């Protein structure tokens, strides 16, 4: 049967090359039948392919057979693809058949001539009279690799097509182009795309309008991005208002698309944002208009188009629109606290919604607001807010708890009802226990005073039964215990007076509590904590809290949060000593994790105090140095036997460490001698680690000079203060003495060095609170790669700087280091007497000349403030620059220059 059919097809096609329906059916039956043999398929394929060349045959049917073949038998795809490719290249091929052929070509196939890169073919397809061909081309625009300018002009032109589907496809193509990261720097072209899309917002066809919304959003964003800073905000507002107009469309999908587009806008001015919640246009914004289109005929966009849109959207009858609106609100609340304050009421109402997705989105929006500290919960909201906590849906409950954790309640009554609802949640849904505990703990921590009050009131409930049996069967009791646990670590730093017994009751529930607080601590740590709390009244022991608690490394968290920043730093310095054994053992992962968590904790404090206090910066830098040193140490000892492997990494790490240590030495004033000594010691460790692999006598000499200068300083310090020098120092000093006399010194004594290295350990350092951090900020107004400063090549150019100095005393010698690429550095001396202000902060606007402007159109300078290190004996090699070695006080600021246009 199979052979007969094949023979039939082949012979008939050979005689009369016409694809009759019967013939097509026969071929199709062969293709679709899974039992057709490979030979048959191959010969059928070859017959079909052979007929491709025939200009009289119906190519559409032929290609539909080939595509069926390609779909059913993927292994034949390459052959079909090759045939299609050959067909495309034929000069006789008619344009209407091209889409069929092109869609069969495998894009991955490497071919010498890629039809998808053929611009003329692309254009002929786009300009073909058949709508179907145009549509296919536009829908498959992503397959073609022609120049973006060709794409753009063709797509833009086809937005004028009388056929709505072509307009729609052209708009989608434009969106794709803008998302594909094509670079268009012609502003007029972008404007054209934007305004053309805006025009199509008023199309009669729904699908075109829908695509137009996306196109307006995409090209609007590009337009905003390309606008100069002055008009950026205006363009952003214009885009916002333009999209607001579409929120009132009668088509649901368009409303959804409009809201999601609104959500993508990054900046909107507050008055426009407030309009979206107002019933009527507010006076002042009434007259404001933007570039854009109001109706099909009116080309002026009044700001009033934004009036009430979010309210309309949030109460839309379609849940898709409400969800989308909620999502847009989420993005907008970040922009304005005032807006957030107004919209919160509607969001709370939405928590009553029937649709789960909308409720969830509303909660996520509230959560987002809370994260940005824009959530102000009022008493009237509570009903709805708490309603979500006892919602039937687990996702909603979980989202509500997440939001509650971040909420700050102003009144005790509000907090109390919140706790009650959480307990109710726990009673109704025991499966939420862990999560509820976590929420209780978190919220308790931020409301320490209220917790203490509540625990006092309910202490009776927490007592065991009169027979002394601890039977905590009621979930309420357990929940209250969790709340009590949170009090001592309260963020309010309130000395709590919760009776210690309560903590001992909590110990009995350790397992359950651990599950809830698992994200914060582990069981042992919790036990330690609880037993500590139950031994002392927290009030009396809070001073010695840190010393008594012997936490697992991870749980320094608990202590840290309790402390002010200074004590927190102290704890870090105290704890860091314990890390050294771990470093020696090579447990770097754990060390790094610990360091990171400490760093986060410290950064948490640095957010509060601006500018960050010197102590904190010092501590952060210290942590960083220890991390680098630890890594280097691990590298040194693990790679010791592997000759020269990993030297690059080690070298880089040690260089970095050295630079950091130098910075610590010079950028802080008020370091105690002990601390300075410790830093010098660390420096020596760095040098010593570096030596054996540095190799060569030159390096050795460098080492000796460096080590000697450090020793010199150590001795000076030692003289001033009669402290016992560290063992490592003494040992190293002895060794250097010993081999200082012999010429080929250290190279023969690696074991000696290693021995002395083993003597090293981290010391607990005490940092005085009056530590000042020398810092500089450098800024050039309104300069970025789009707004370069003009220059004339060969002539000096003046660069206006704004320089801010922190804690710099008059005696300091500061320079501006201006680097042109990697090649050369030019120094400009900064006269501190020209700066206004005092030691704490000095400011000056200052025009520095740059002399060697190169013969290029654009170039970038890197500028930073450097300070000469007067105490260091080494001299710098720079002419017309600092005499001594210097360190950088600021990050390199990039300055863009471009030739002044004639």
């Amino acid at each position: 049967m199979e052979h007969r059919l094949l023979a039939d097809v082949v012979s008939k096609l050979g005689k009369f090359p016409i694809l009759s329906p019967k013939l097509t059916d026969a071929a199709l039956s062969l293709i679709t039948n899974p039992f057709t043999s490979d030979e048959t398929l191959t010969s059928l394929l070859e017959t079909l392919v052979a007929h491709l060349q025939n200009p009289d045959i119906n190519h559409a049917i032929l290609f539909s057979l080939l595509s069926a073949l390609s779909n059913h038998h993927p292994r034949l795809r390459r052959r079909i693809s090759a045939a299609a490719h050959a067909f495309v290249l034929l000069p006789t091929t008619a344009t209407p058949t091209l889409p069929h052929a092109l869609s069969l070509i495998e894009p991955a196939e490497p071919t010498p001539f890629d039809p998808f890169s053929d611009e003329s073919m692309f254009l002929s397809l786009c300009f073909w009279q058949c709508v179907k061909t145009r549509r296919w081309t536009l829908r498959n625009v992503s397959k073609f690799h022609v120049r973006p300018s060709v794409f753009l002009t063709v797509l833009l032109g086809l937005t004028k097509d009388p056929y709505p589907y072509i307009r729609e496809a052209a708009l989608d193509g434009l969106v794709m182009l803008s998302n594909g990261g094509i670079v268009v720097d012609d502003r007029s072209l972008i404007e054209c795309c934007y305004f053309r899309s805006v025009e199509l917002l008023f199309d009669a066809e729904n699908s075109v309008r829908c695509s137009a919304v996306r196109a307006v959003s995409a090209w609007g964003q590009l337009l905003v991005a390309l606008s100069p800073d002055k008009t950026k905000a205006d363009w952003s507002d214009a885009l916002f208002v333009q999209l607001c107009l579409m929120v009132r469309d009668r088509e649901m999908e368009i409303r959804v698309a409009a809201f999601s587009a609104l959500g993508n806008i990054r900046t909107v001015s507050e008055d426009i944002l407030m309009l979206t919640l107002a019933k009527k246009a507010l006076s002042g914004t009434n007259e404001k208009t933007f570039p854009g289109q109001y109706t099909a005929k009116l080309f002026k966009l009044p700001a009033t188009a934004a009036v009430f849109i979010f309210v309309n959207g949030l109460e839309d009858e379609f849940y898709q629109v409400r969800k989308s609106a909620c999502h847009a609100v989420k993005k907008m609340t970040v922009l304005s606290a005032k807006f957030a304050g107004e919209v919160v009421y509607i969001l709370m109402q939405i928590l009553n919604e029937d649709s789960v997705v909308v409720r969830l989105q509303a909660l996520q929006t509230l959560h987002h607001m809370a994260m940005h500290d824009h959530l102000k919960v009022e008493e009237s909201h509570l009903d709805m807010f708490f309603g979500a906590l006892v919602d039937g849906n687990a996702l909603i409950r979980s989202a509500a708890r997440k939001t509650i954790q971040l909420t700050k309640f102003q009144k005790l009554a509000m907090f109390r009802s919140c706790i009650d609802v959480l307990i109710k949640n726990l009673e109704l849904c025991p499966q939420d226990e862990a999560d509820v505990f976590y929420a209780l703990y978190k919220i308790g921590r931020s409301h320490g005073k209220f917790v203490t009050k509540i625990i006092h009131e309910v202490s009776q409930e927490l007592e065991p039964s009169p027979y002394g049996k601890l039977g905590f069967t009621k979930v309420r009791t357990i929940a209250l215990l969790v709340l009590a646990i949170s009090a001592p670590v309260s963020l309010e730093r309130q000395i709590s007076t919760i009776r210690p017994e309560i903590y001992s009751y909590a110990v009995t529930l350790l397992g359950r509590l651990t599950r809830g607080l698992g994200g914060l601590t582990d069981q042992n740590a919790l036990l330690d904590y609880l037993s500590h709390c139950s031994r002392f009244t927290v009030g009396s022991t809070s001073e010695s809290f840190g010393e008594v608690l012997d936490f697992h490394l991870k749980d320094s968290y608990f202590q840290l949060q309790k402390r002010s920043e200074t004590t927190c730093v102290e704890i870090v310095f105290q704890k860091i000593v314990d890390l050294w054994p771990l470093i020696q053992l090579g447990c770097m992962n754990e060390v790094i994790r610990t360091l990171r968590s400490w760093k986060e904790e410290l950064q948490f404090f640095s957010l509060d105090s601006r500018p960050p206090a010197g102590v904190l910066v010092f501590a952060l830098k210290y942590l960083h140095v220890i991390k680098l040193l630890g890594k280097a140490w691990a590298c040194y000892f693990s790679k010791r036997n592997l000759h020269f492997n990993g030297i690059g990494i080690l070298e880089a790490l040690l260089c970095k460490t050295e630079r950091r240590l130098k910075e610590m030495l010079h950028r802080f004033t008020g370091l105690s001698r002990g601390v300075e000594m410790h830093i010098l010691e660390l420096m020596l460790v760095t040098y010593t680690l570096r030596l054996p692999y540095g190799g060569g006598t030159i390096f050795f000499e460098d080492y000796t000079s460096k080590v000697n200068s450090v020793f010199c300083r150590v001795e000076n310090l030692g003289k001033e203060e009669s402290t016992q020098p560290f063992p490592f120092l003494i040992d190293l000093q002895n060794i250097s003495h010993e081999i200082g006399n012999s010429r080929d010194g250290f190279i023969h004594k690696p074991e000696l060095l290693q021995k002395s290295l083993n003597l090293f350990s981290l010391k607990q350092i005490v940092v005085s609170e009056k530590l000042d951090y020398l810092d500089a900020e450098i800024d050039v107004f309104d300069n970025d790669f789009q707004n370069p400063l003009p220059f004339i090549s060969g002539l000096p150019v003046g660069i206006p700087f704004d320089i801010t100095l922190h804690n710099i005393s008059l005696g300091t010698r500061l320079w501006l280091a201006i680097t042109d690429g990697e090649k050369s550095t030019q120094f400009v001396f900064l006269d501190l007497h020209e700066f206004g202000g005092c030691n704490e902060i000095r400011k000056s606007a200052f025009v520095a000349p740059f002399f060697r402007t190169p013969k290029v159109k654009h170039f970038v300078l890197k500028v930073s403030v450097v300070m000469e290190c007067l105490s260091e004996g080494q001299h710098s090699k720079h002419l017309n620059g600092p005499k001594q070695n210097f360190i950088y006080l600021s990050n390199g600021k990039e300055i863009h220059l471009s030739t002044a246009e004639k």
Partner: protein
Amino acid sequence: MAIECLVLGAGQDVGKSCVIVKINGKSIMFDCGIHTGYQDHRRYPDFSLISANSGDFTDSLSCIIITHFHLDHIGALPYFTQVCGYNGPIYMTYPTKALAPIMLEDYRKLIFEGREEEKQFSSEDIAECMKKVTAVDLKQTIQVDKDLQIRAYYAGHVIGAAMFYAKVGDSAMVYTGDYNMTADRHLGAAQIDRLQLDLVITESTYATSYRDSKYVREREFLKVVHNCVAGGGKVLIPTFALGRAQELCMILDDYWEKTNLKVPIYFSADSFSGLTLQANMYYKILINWTSQKVKDTYTTRNPFDFKNVCSFDRSLIHAPGPCVLFATPAMISGFSLDVFKLWAPDERNLVTLTGYCGSGTIGRKLMVAKPPTRITLDDNVQLDVRCQIYQLSFSPHTDAKGIMDLVKFLSPKHVILVHGEKPKMVKLKEIIESELEIPCYHPANHETLHIPSTRRIEASASDAFLQSCLCPNFKFLKTDPRQDSELDDDSNNKRKMPQLQVCENRVAQGLLITLQKNQSRKVVTENELIDTIGTEIHEEKFAYCCPIYFPNSESRDISSFHLILFGKLSREFPDLNIQDCEDVIRIQSFVGSFCSKAKCPYRTDVSFQSVLDTVHFCCAWSMGDEELAWRVISTMKNLKLSDRIET
């Protein structure tokens, strides 16, 4: 061509909506309502104006379209069909057809019962009238006759309410009826396509008010009701049985559910007809016509199955304790008046007023009253009102923003406002005209408006033209931004058009010609024009015989003169391609040659006699190069001696 629009009712007024629109010879009656405020002949629209001569309404009207079942939109229909004798087609949506007879019956009983002499139509009339009605579905296109097409769109407002689109030939219009642009608890927002329209006739009940958010409205209502029942008071909600009642019921039912209130909510069954009994049932059946939100929840529970609402028995009026009662009718008369009389003197009680209250009704009196007060019920009865009065801001009508939104969305060529109060209409008209630049009218009753409408003519197209239409043929135009800024006098006016613009030429490139043979019209391409009209090309040319001063011209050679002229022109116009061939100078279409004729017709010298030392140079050019030609001529005229010496 024009659309003729005769307003029979609801012109600068609310009540007896009735508009006759005549488009391209087809007359359509939109709505046929009664005015509930009047008891006399003013109750009905003045139908005699429809066909002043014949009196035969069936011939005069192509069809009647009813937008929804409210009496001010349908009340006069049985009268018009059964008494006036209209026998043509009537269109309304399915729910309207289902609910209309109940409404009409209710009204008939209320007004005509016991007043046989005034009786205008009977139950049988209603039934007969309804038999003539054709029910339509949303977005279903109905071909009323060969030329007239109508289509219904969802309007919100009440269940089954629709906006109607009507098209005759090329003229199209939309009559909105009453509509709501935002969804409420139970009904969706109006939904319509973006159509090409000549006219939109829209209601304008709330032409100047701006509605608050739904959530704010609901919260206020619930707060007032809760406070009243918490204080042991009774709440009377006089309302219409269909529509608001269901919405308020839903809100209260939800709230009762959430707050676990035990105070009874009654839905009064004490009415003349079974309307109230059936109302909730209809809503349950007609779920498809409710809002998307209701439809979404319908899968789990019918939101019209109120858990806390029970039917009311008259004996309960005197029952002690708090309760909430929905009683018909809305403007406080009949049953709701009975209850009101009993409950009004107690200050703990509350009366909520919903929606619109016609003038003269007790509802209207309460709206302006500030308790405690004394209001007159009729000639000799006065009532102490001490209870609280609360005006609900719930309304099934769209607010000013909604009207603007709809008009903006549809962007018709003209707007007519009906169903509203005149001062408000005037304000809205001003806004529509200034903001949207659409001409707007607010005719009074019995006024006729003529509105120009689109008229399209049929024309055949040549093959070449069709071919040119098929392929995209666009080009880009670059405008000069400076020109724009000159046009913009107002610097604050930030109107900005892109410098680069796309234009598509393919459709615009044809020429419409009327063939004289048979007056038929044809669109052809530019190239075909000459062939089609069968004439020759006539070109318009300008000519001027220019005198040039040239000393001793007789003794000189003409060719040297040419050389001089050519040299001069080449220097003056370096950008132009100047050709000098066979004693003729050509610059684009400009052609000039030495003129030896004594009487050249293009010579403007008065004397026609040859002036000494002057030669004539005859120039001709076509219109496009006029400016160039005069520049060349003035250069030639100023030919100086020095030029000659140079050559």
